[in-house]
């Protein structure tokens, strides 16, 4: 336990899930131990850490998929959880369209389904078989399914895996957008140490235990983080910041800040004060370590 500062307080949000000194033991080995974590409504908490550092275990423990062997997990009563797991090994023999995937765990009206697909930018894929989707399309479909539940807490395990850099930026936009519109709390696992959403309120860096935590910038500067990942890695931690006001949807169209959707974006239409942040996102430091 290098640093055990309290999660910085979010004045307004209700507590959704809280872990106190939680540990998970499998076959005599502690996968994670001594984890303190809290997610409040409207807050984005990101877990980062090397492979095998217990990120997924921590997230699964927070939502009750895994029971902790020590410590406590407290979830708000009647908490609605939307979960996007790291991997889905779908057997080829199971025919499942994107539209059918939407009602996997709960029924929903046609209008709500198309609304969620539209918001995730995959409305044009509704009839497509899930097995035929690309990595990014699949992640968006899973995200649409999770947000269709109108969850209090959205848990995303490496939501941008298998997505190229441009898509990554667009997905982070979408996640921020979900938080802004629904006010849900988000617990996210980042697949890449070097890319953390700038919108993240708290970054928790795991390595079998909580190695350090705080706002993205302070974690990046902390000696524990540098010790764990090396100075070079720390220097290349990139914070994606969005300076622009429109979203490039997966089908090529553009959604503007006022909610209108057009086929292209126009640099002189007054909405813009930048040039295509999607293709050249503003990052601090290079991507490669």
């Amino acid at each position, binding site marked *: 336990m290098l640093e055990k500062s309290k999660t910085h307080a979010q004045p307004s949000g209700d507590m959704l899930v809280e872990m106190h000194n939680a540990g998970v033991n499998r076959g005599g080995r502690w996968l994670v131990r001594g984890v303190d974590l809290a997610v409040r409504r409207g807050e984005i908490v990101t877990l980062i850490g090397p492979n095998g550092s217990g990120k997924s275990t921590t997230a699964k423990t927070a939502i009750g998929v895994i029971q902790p062997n020590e410590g406590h997990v407290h979830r708000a009563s009647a908490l609605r959880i939307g979960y996007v797991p790291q991997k889905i090994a779908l057997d080829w023999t199971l025919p*499942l369209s994107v539209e059918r995937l939407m009602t996997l765990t709960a029924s929903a009206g046609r209008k709500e389904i198309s609304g969620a697909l539209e918001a995730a930018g995959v409305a044009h894929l509704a009839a497509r*078989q899930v097995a035929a989707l690309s990595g990014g399309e699949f992640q968006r479909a899973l995200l649409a399914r999770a947000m269709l539940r109108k969850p209090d807490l959205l*848990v995303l395990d490496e939501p941008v895996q298998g997505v190229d850099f441009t898509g990554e930026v667009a997905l982070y936009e979408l996640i921020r957008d979900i938080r802004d519109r629904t006010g849900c709390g988000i617990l996210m696992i980042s697949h890449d140490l070097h890319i953390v959403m700038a919108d993240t309120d708290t970054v928790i860096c795991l390595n079998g235990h909580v190695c350090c935590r705080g706002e993205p910038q302070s974690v990046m500067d902390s000696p524990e983080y540098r010790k764990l990942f090396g100075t070079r890695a720390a220097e290349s931690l990139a914070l994606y910041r969005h300076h622009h006001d429109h979203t490039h949807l997966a089908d090529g169209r553009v959604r503007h800040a006022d909610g209108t959707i057009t086929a292209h974006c126009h640099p002189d239409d007054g909405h813009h004060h930048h040039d295509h942040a999607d293709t050249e996102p503003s990052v601090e430091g290079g991507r490669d370590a």
Partner: protein
Amino acid sequence: MLDDFFIRALFAGIGLALVTGPLGCFVVWRRMAYFGDTMAHSALLGVALSLVMEINLMVGVFLVAALASLALILLERRRALSTDALLGILSHSTLALGLVMVAFMTWVRVDLMGFLFGDILAVSRTDIAIIYGGGGLVLALLVWLWRPLLAATVNPDIAQAEGLRPERSRLIFMLLMAAVIAIAMKLVGILLITALLIIPAATARRFAGSPEIMAVLAALIGAISVAGGLTASLQFDTPSGPSIVVAALALFVLSLAPSPVMKTETSSAETKP
């Protein structure tokens, strides 16, 4: 109408196929073919034990098949051997135990071939009542369990996180399997039960765009296999149980044949435009 043995067999077989089709879809989706085989093989031990303890055969088979699946879950948790090896041990040892026990029981005349390969032509009105009553109950429970079981099949963690209790779904599903094996044993025999679960479902896959359609198609394809197999067995004087499985296999092979109509349908549904 049920006076004729052939009509009775047809009725019984179709009733069974309507249940094994949808249930078999889950066996295929969850990759539990070998597991189903193991449960079916344990049925012979169930037969032997029911004869010793003088209880109803179906009840005995159901109990032993259910216990075999529970034993597997418990053994799996110990993580000493792979599931594959455990299934192999359980499958063949329960079958062998059953055979040995039956051999010891010199005081009862046991029609071993009847248990191994079934005797659908010998079904009585009572059997038909049990098939439709029990089968109807299994189908009703499957419909009730559909959403949580499908969610657990796609991803158990999602099902757990979103409150659908995948472990409970799995347990109930295993009990349904045990029930179907108990019902089906007299008709197609314990060695061929899994064929009726898997082959129609595998055949249905190619024509289905959703899980629900696949389940309905599997039931229909199973019913067609029963009708075709029984007719052929009457025609060529072949054993009825195996003939039904051969008919199911023929339909499966036909479903693999390239057809221009099917090709465009599947490609528009499954590949990018």
